[in-house]
């Protein structure tokens, strides 16, 4: 059995497809941004940067774009950025949504569960000041009213390239050391 699997992987070699489904064009900016991101992450975080994501009432478009960052075209994992399942493994908390009152406690608990040093990134227009939902009776009016925010990534939703660009600009500022 084991022999068969081994033989299979040796004879067939690596099975990959060229990045061409549906003829999408990978922007050359991904590679140049990525190389620089990788260098900065290596210098600032000791090789890798781990992010825990929490949705506090976003419409789901921001999540969709964060997930797109990991698809084979952008694949930001190769630049040292990883999305982790537990706050215990995270360097930063990435928060979307205007913070529904129902999520306030869960958000605080997630933050408290993270080891230091840690910092908070808010993503998407409603995470800052509540956006369109700021007058609602049931939102906290943005992440900054609940936790200290170090970086905001604007957009509704920000595309993967915008996320990469904003992160890189932030690392260049040298706030995190």
């Amino acid at each position, binding site marked *: 059995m084991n022999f068969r699997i081994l033989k299979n992987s040796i004879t067939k070699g690596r*099975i990959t*497809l060229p*990045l061409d*489904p*549906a*003829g*999408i*064009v990978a922007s050359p900016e991904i590679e140049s941004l990525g190389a620089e991101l990788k260098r900065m992450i290596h210098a600032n975080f000791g090789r890798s940067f781990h992010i825990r*994501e*929490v*949705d*506090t*009432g*976003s*419409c*789901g*478009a*921001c*999540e*969709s*774009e*964060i*997930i*797109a960052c*990991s*698809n*084979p*075209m952008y694949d930001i994992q190769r630049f040292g950025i990883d*999305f982790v*399942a*537990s706050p215990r493994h995270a360097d930063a908390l990435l928060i979307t*949504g*205007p913070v*529904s*009152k*129902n*999520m*306030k*406690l*869960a*958000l605080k608990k*997630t933050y408290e569960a993270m080891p230091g040093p840690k910092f908070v990134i808010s993503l998407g227009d*409603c995470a800052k000041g509540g956006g*369109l*939902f700021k*007058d*609602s*009776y*049931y*939102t906290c009016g943005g992440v900054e009213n609940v936790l200290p925010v170090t970086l905001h990534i604007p957009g*509704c*939703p920000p*595309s993967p390239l915008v996320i990469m660009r904003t992160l890189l600009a932030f690392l260049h500022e040298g706030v995190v050391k």
Partner: protein
Amino acid sequence: MKDTDFIQNILASEKIGTVNLLRSFLDEVHITVAGADFTKACALLHNRLSSPVMMFFAEDLREQSGSFALNCVFLSMQMQSWREMFGIEPSGNPDLRSLRLHDEIWPKGYYPLRKDFAAPREKISDRPRYLFKRVDGEGIFEVPVGPVHAGIIGPGHFRFSTAGEPIISLELRLGWTHRGIEKLLEGKSIPEAIKIFERISGDTAFGYSMAFCLAVEKAQGIDVPLRSQLIRVLCLELERLYNHANDMGGIALDVGFSFPAQFASLIKEAFLQLNDAVCGSRYLKGVNIVGGTLLDIDTVKSALIRTTLTKIRKDFCTLEEMLLSSVSFMDRADATGILRTKTARDLGVTGLAARASGIGLDTRNVFPDIYRSLSFKTAKEQTGDVAARLKVRCSEVTESLGLIQQCLQKLAICDPHKKRTAIEKSGAALGCVEAWRGPVLVWTRLDTAEKIERCKIVDPSFHNWEGLSYAVLGNIIPDFPLCNKSFDLSYPGNDL
């Protein structure tokens, strides 16, 4: 026999006297009954008409007529939302849990959708904590999950009770992403409201804005030009396609089959880039306006869509083959998470999930009108398991690609846009769109200043979450993500 007479006869057979029965639009019949007969009439029509209850809502008309008005749209556990939002106590409804205003957060006696509502000043709730249903017995384990999940996904709380491996009870507690959208919409102008509609559920941005525009257009008597109607169909199908690609990949990912999952994520990326190139937004935002669309499809865009879709069609075939021909994958998907036809019918499950459980309900056969001039088949499967929901997606992909082709052909010979103006300023009407998950319903009442007086929204997820909690019974917890993804329900659409 006219359909109004038919309804009159049904109601008369149970001795329910109608107060008023009138056809207000070509596709809407309004029935008014006395308060005492309301529940009985709803139950009767749900069972006797071929259209299940799709929407229950209340209106605060105390200033106009001295009472609340209860409305029911046929196309159900929705009474809870009257109770928490208006403070109307339904009689005979045993389930009094709050859906969106959580007990630990929101104090007693504050009803957001009443017109005289003022936000509570005190910070702490005075209501008792929410109690989950308890399953007792030897060897029963309770597994709480959420609201913060391990993945990049919306928040929800799942309370599993298991006996050994199989799940014997699943209680869903949702409402975590509640943003008070129905209240927020009150007093908003139409362009402001469209922006909010595009942000109710990000993956159905187009479906929502279209449903709202249809409601307003119907209420104001606006005739939408054919060209805009075709562009709307095209965009709605693009939205369906990118979400189906996403889910087909997601189902593969949740059994650890990463190659097709990554392949599908590239197909989705291709759609998002196509959306961006065609209408300037990866999620089809900013296209719909009342009376038409801001977007026009010229020959250049038309050619771009054609060439991209030809390639994508091939990729979809590859993806489908990868999934359906993998024995180990199909072993996980077959007979997992079965939602029986009867359960689906009783719970009022709609849309894609219903079609996979043998209920051939697709509102595109009726609303909006334009679909009747295009040809497509309604996908339907009988088994109601994960594999059935996957196969329904596969056939809908083929139909959607066909629909887009037909739209492009018609657009090429269609007159350019003409701007239409409103006949009426105020009024109330229902907009219904078969978005990718199922029918999105928006009912709105406009005042004389063209501002929203009351707006009620129902996402298909609202019916289907309950279906999921039945579908997982008897399955093991490791299969829950798979079942969940095969439904792929919206947290923000349900929580509003």
